């Protein structure tokens, strides 16, 4: 599979010498500097416990760095207020490792949730949500609730929810961690298609086999609390 080649341009994400420590412990992440460009495709990889999820949480602003500068969509995050953060979060789609689907809502309602919280009426988004569900292979499970879905189906519902607002940047934390290799390949193809349609992708994974299937994807490798960029 061929991802969009990395080109320089206006950055969606920019980290400059970012460090993070919890309390008085040594830094979990040290001197992290990288950027993510529009329509780019990259893997964030490293051994378990090296801080992949932590780095993703820094990007999604679920954590604040203890030093350094993070810029999102051209805005220094240190200077943003709550409403501005909300606006930036809406330009990102997030696929959680543990899916985070709401069990009392149907697959359709879960996927439509980001549109609903933006105040859109159901009549305005029903068709596009149904199309998206078909695209991820969940067209027959629109009324099923998450407890009845398999791991792979939950993962696809989670991905559909992240994509429904057509984000400029998709962050995915181990999106293939809970699925078999065949389904992992299907999901990866889905990410590549999405990337081709213009969304920048950052996938955190420790699955080497998955990364080898993609040509042209950058690798951000975490080791010893630092980040090394390959490709």
């Amino acid at each position, binding site marked *: 599979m061929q991802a969009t080649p990395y080109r320089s341009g206006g950055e969606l994400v920019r980290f400059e010498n970012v460090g993070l420590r919890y309390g008085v412990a040594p830094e979990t992440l040290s001197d992290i500097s990288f950027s993510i460009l529009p329509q780019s495709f990259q893997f964030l990889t490293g051994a378990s416990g090296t801080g992949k999820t932590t780095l993703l949480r820094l990007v999604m602003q*679920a954590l604040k760095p203890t030093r350094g500068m993070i810029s999102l969509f051209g805005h220094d995050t240190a200077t943003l207020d709550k*409403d501005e953060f*909300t606006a930036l*979060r809406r330009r990102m789609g997030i696929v959680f490792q543990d899916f985070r689907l*709401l069990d009392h809502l149907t697959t359709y309602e879960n996927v439509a*949730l980001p549109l609903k919280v*933006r*105040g859109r009426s159901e009549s305005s988004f029903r068709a596009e949500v149904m199309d998206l569900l078909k695209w991820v292979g969940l067209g027959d499970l629109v009324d099923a609730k998450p407890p009845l879905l398999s791991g792979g189906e939950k993962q696809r519902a989670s991905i559909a929810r992240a994509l429904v607002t057509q984000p*400029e940047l998709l962050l995915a934390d181990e999106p293939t961690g809970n699925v078999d290799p065949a389904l992992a390949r299907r999901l990866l193809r889905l990410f590549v298609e999405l990337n081709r349609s213009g969304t920048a992708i950052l996938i955190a994974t420790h699955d080497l086999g998955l990364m080898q299937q993609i040509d042209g994807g950058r690798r951000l490798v975490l080791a010893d609390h630092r980040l090394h960029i390959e490709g």
Partner: protein
Amino acid sequence: MTQPDMQNPTNINRKGLRYLLRAESMVAPDPVTDRALIAVIVILTFMAALTAGLVQFASVATARWQVVLASEVTVQIRPQIGRDIEIDLKHAEDLLRNVHGVTKVRIYPREETVRLLEPWLGSASVLDSLPIPRLIAVQISNDDPPDIISLSQSLTREIPGLSIDDHRTWTRRLSRIGETLIIASFAIFALVMLAVTMAIVFATRGAMAGNRAIIEVLYFIGAEDRYIARVFQFHFFSLGLVGGLIGGSLSIIVLFFLKIIAVNSDGLRETFGLGSVNVLSGPGWSVFVVTLLVVAVVAGLAALVSRITVFKTIDKFE
């Protein structure tokens, strides 16, 4: 790709109840937790509304005692050597009837006076030989009462041995007892409301604990903090309102039956002066108003606590 407006990231929040009802479905229904919270709120609202009702009973009864005592004075004429007490009584009655502010005058017959003294002085035959003071019960207008001091002076000039007791000592004592009763009732009500507040805060926080995951999901898919807060606020306000209305209704029913028991019990009616006090009319409407206020406070508290919990949870993400 659509770019969000950084200055005005959303146009939500302004679409009324329909929008809120739709948003409310995002809160996972948890029958066990919801019912437990409603049960706690029913009990607490019942206690608070009942206390509030009893405070009103106490203040109405106290006011009633004071009105009854203040609307009557007793004229006493002691027998004087060389004077006919019956003529003095008749003369006093005539004078009193012409006084502005006097609404009713009644001379206690000698037999009635003797009966009043019998418990202390023995049989009627003994009393017949004693010079017994005679009494006149005088009803006065509460709105426009006569000046008791000048009335007393003018009557004493006309009839030697006459004195007027305006029950001031009793009124003053009862007034103090009444005030103490009302202050004590308010203090109890304040304590009950404090307990209610704390219990609802803890119960709502407990019920919110299971919703952290939903708050997190809503936050990361781009919901505004205010929007998330309103979703939960509406849910917990609804629970508070349902529990509050049930508890409040129960307290009104109990107060209504207490009132029926009180007015049908001679002893209680006399003690509390409830004969002319109706819980469901006149001052009784305040029972409904105060109960509704308690319900509103309880539902508002549940909503406020859920709102604060949402903001605290979100602050931990940021």
